[in-house]
């Protein structure tokens, strides 16, 4: 990549999402509330085929029967699902030939995000499908990908252009009735990304999507579907930002990954949604269902850096169905002020000789609560399944909490499961030592936190790792008095 670390750093500095800003673009927004007509209207708005409308309606029917889960170690005022607008799209439909035609305000937003299409084009090797308030506005590098037979587009487009793939795989890993939020998402998802890598193809670039919640009071329901056909490889990056708002915003995304025989998917996320202010007001509710299915000898790696959101409820998981398949989960979750995170993973071993690794790093500051919740499940036919889990917690101050909830269910005696956990606290001695070397306290904390998180940061693609480090610093700013 012809991009030096310095340049990246400079570019990242322009991403001042910690200050919060939002774009004033006329939006085509539905009235608040949810019923069958709204579901139908969303489907119609997106010019979906009938089978998709039927699928949404079925999901909606399931959702109505379900209750919001309460088992997570988080406390919040439940959203009123009838007080949310379920569809919002930038008004001026985006079929632009050049950047000059794009709404200048939108471009300005991109600039603030540090991801102007302009710059993205220069960022050789990264194709970006930008999701701005639910509708994909721009997709670049499509041509290069098309030459390899790779499909990378919005899910709406995929529903129209590649119905056979979508029909076959949507809901195959996360069924509509899987859980409350997944059902809601299935009924009302507005847009998201779709990616298909054909047999034997190694995707030549990191595929990247930036999400952004923009319209006040609009829930964001993203749907992502990634299919890696036999012996293919793809690395997918997902990054999120949101403007500051004094109102809780609901986000309930579903991500499904399918890795067919011998395929590999690497899915990296840097999540930096508005966490609420210092008093714990506002902030995004993030209830996400992410799951991947591994066929024979396939591998799925989830890497996540979670710094934002007021409430996070998220467990990227792997179903290791095929023999010799591999699942990995690397996570850094930072909570500060009044943030609450209940995050972790599920590794479900079904096939023989399946292997999973879990490395979770939780950092708690302020009055926040940070929980790791993980399930390692070994099925009766999963001979010689192996798992290694490591959960480390780092505490800052005396008012935060770190919790670990590891669940292990083994139905096969040949399974080998290891679990390690540590809890440490940033000590005054460490801070003074850094201070004495000329490093101020904020920088010292960043340094210690980066060291603590290193094993996971190292798993991120380079440009993401730089952003993630920066984010860790921003997230913990002012966490020591």
């Amino acid at each position, binding site marked *: 990549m012809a991009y030096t670390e310095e340049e990246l750093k400079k570019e990242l500095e322009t991403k001042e999402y910690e200050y919060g800003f939002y774009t004033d673009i006329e939006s085509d927004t539905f009235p608040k509330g949810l019923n069958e007509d709204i579901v139908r209207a969303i489907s119609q708005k997106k010019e979906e085929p009938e089978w998709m409308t039927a699928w949404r309606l079925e999901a909606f029917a399931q959702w109505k029967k379900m209750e919001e889960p309460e088992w997570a170690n988080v406390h919040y005022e439940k959203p009123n699902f009838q007080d949310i607008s379920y569809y919002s799209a930038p008004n001026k439909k985006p079929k632009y030939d050049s950047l000059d035609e794009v709404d200048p305000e939108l471009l300005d937003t991109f600039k603030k995000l540090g991801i102007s299409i302009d710059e993205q084009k220069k960022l050789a090797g990264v194709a970006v499908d930008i999701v701005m308030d639910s509708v994909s506005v721009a997709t670049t590098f499509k041509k290069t990908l098309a030459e390899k037979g790779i499909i990378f587009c919005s899910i709406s487009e995929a529903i129209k252009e590649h119905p056979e793939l979508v029909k076959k795989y949507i809901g195959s890993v996360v069924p509509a009735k899987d859980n409350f939020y997944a059902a809601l998402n299935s009924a009302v998802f507005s847009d998201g990304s779709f990616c298909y890598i054909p047999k034997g193809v190694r995707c030549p670039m990191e595929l990247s999507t930036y999400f952004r919640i923009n319209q006040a009071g609009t829930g964001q329901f993203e749907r992502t579907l990634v299919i890696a056909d036999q012996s293919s490889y793809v690395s997918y990056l997902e990054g999120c930002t949101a403007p500051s708002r004094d109102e809780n915003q609901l986000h309930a995304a579903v991500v499904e990954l399918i890795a067919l025989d011998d395929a590999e998917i690497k899915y990296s996320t840097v999540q930096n949604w508005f966490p609420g202010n210092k008093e714990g007001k506002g902030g995004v509710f993030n209830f996400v269902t992410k799951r991947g299915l591994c066929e024979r000898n396939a591998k799925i790696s989830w890497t996540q850096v979670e710094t934002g959101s007021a409430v996070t409820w998220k467990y990227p998981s792997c179903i290791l169905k095929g023999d010799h398949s591999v699942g990995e989960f690397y996570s850094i979750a930072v909570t500060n002020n009044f943030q609450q995170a209940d995050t972790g993973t599920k590794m479900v071993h079904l096939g023989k000789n399946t292997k999973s690794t879990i490395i979770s790093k939780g950092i708690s500051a302020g009055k926040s609560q940070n929980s790791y919740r993980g399930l390692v499940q070994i099925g009766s036919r999963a001979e010689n399944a192996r798992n290694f889990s490591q959960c480390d917690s780092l505490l800052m101050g005396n008012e935060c909490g770190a919790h670990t909830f590891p669940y292990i269910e083994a139905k096969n005696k040949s399974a080998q499961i290891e679990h390690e956990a540590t809890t440490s606290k940033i000590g005054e*001695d460490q801070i003074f*030592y850094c201070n*004495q*070397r*000329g*490093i*101020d306290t904020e*920088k010292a904390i960043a340094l210690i936190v980066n*060291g603590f998180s290193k094993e996971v940061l190292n798993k991120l693609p380079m440009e993401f790792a730089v952003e993630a480090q920066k984010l860790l610093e921003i997230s913990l700013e002012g966490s020591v008095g």
Partner: protein
Amino acid sequence: MLKIENLHARVEEKEILKGINLEVKPGEVHAIMGPNGSGKSTLASVIAGREDFEVTEGSISLSGEDLGDLDPEERAHAGVFLSFQYPVEIPGVTVTNFIKAAINESRKAKGLEDMPANEMLSKIREKSSLLEIDRKFLSRSLNEGFSGGEKKRNEIFQMAMLEPKLAILDETDSGLDIDALRIVANGVNKLRSKDNAIVVITHYQRLLDHIVPDHVHVLYNGKIVKSGTKELAFELEEKGYDWIKAENE
């Protein structure tokens, strides 16, 4: 260079330093000796600005600049370096990354840009060979799993990199075998110049065989009770601290 006048300091209600006077000129090496609990390490911490201690009276200045109101990092930027008796571990942060951060933060405080990578690299090479430090050592996590000798050598390496005006070596000899002591002491001697000053805090005379001081002070019960040349260290070694205690009871 370093001027301490009538320094009183306490931790919580307990007064530990009870009126210290000390002047160290550029190019000089001073040794501060004394029995356990006499206030040696407290003096080092107070000069470095540790907040656990409250200065109740007196002043500390470096090259005419009063350090009293400065934070620990500002004192470091002003040129104060403390080699810790017990260096802390920072897992996941390599020796190299740590020293880079330290140097660049100090530069930032002076309004300078980060040190260019190649300059940093050659400086690291130069200083590590000066102190006989293996290149592999530099990519290990700071002090994690280090032997006593490695920890102290790392402290002196940082001192070499940061080039402070005033270096305080707090019990640098503790936990070192003879070979490690020699390497560390040689390193310190190579760093001596007419522009910097070194304060060596130690129990024992043996370190002073290697780092020869211009002045020796004996600290007892929060006060400097005796000052002299290096001969004083020999005398102490011979007579033991009871001699001092007896004189001051």
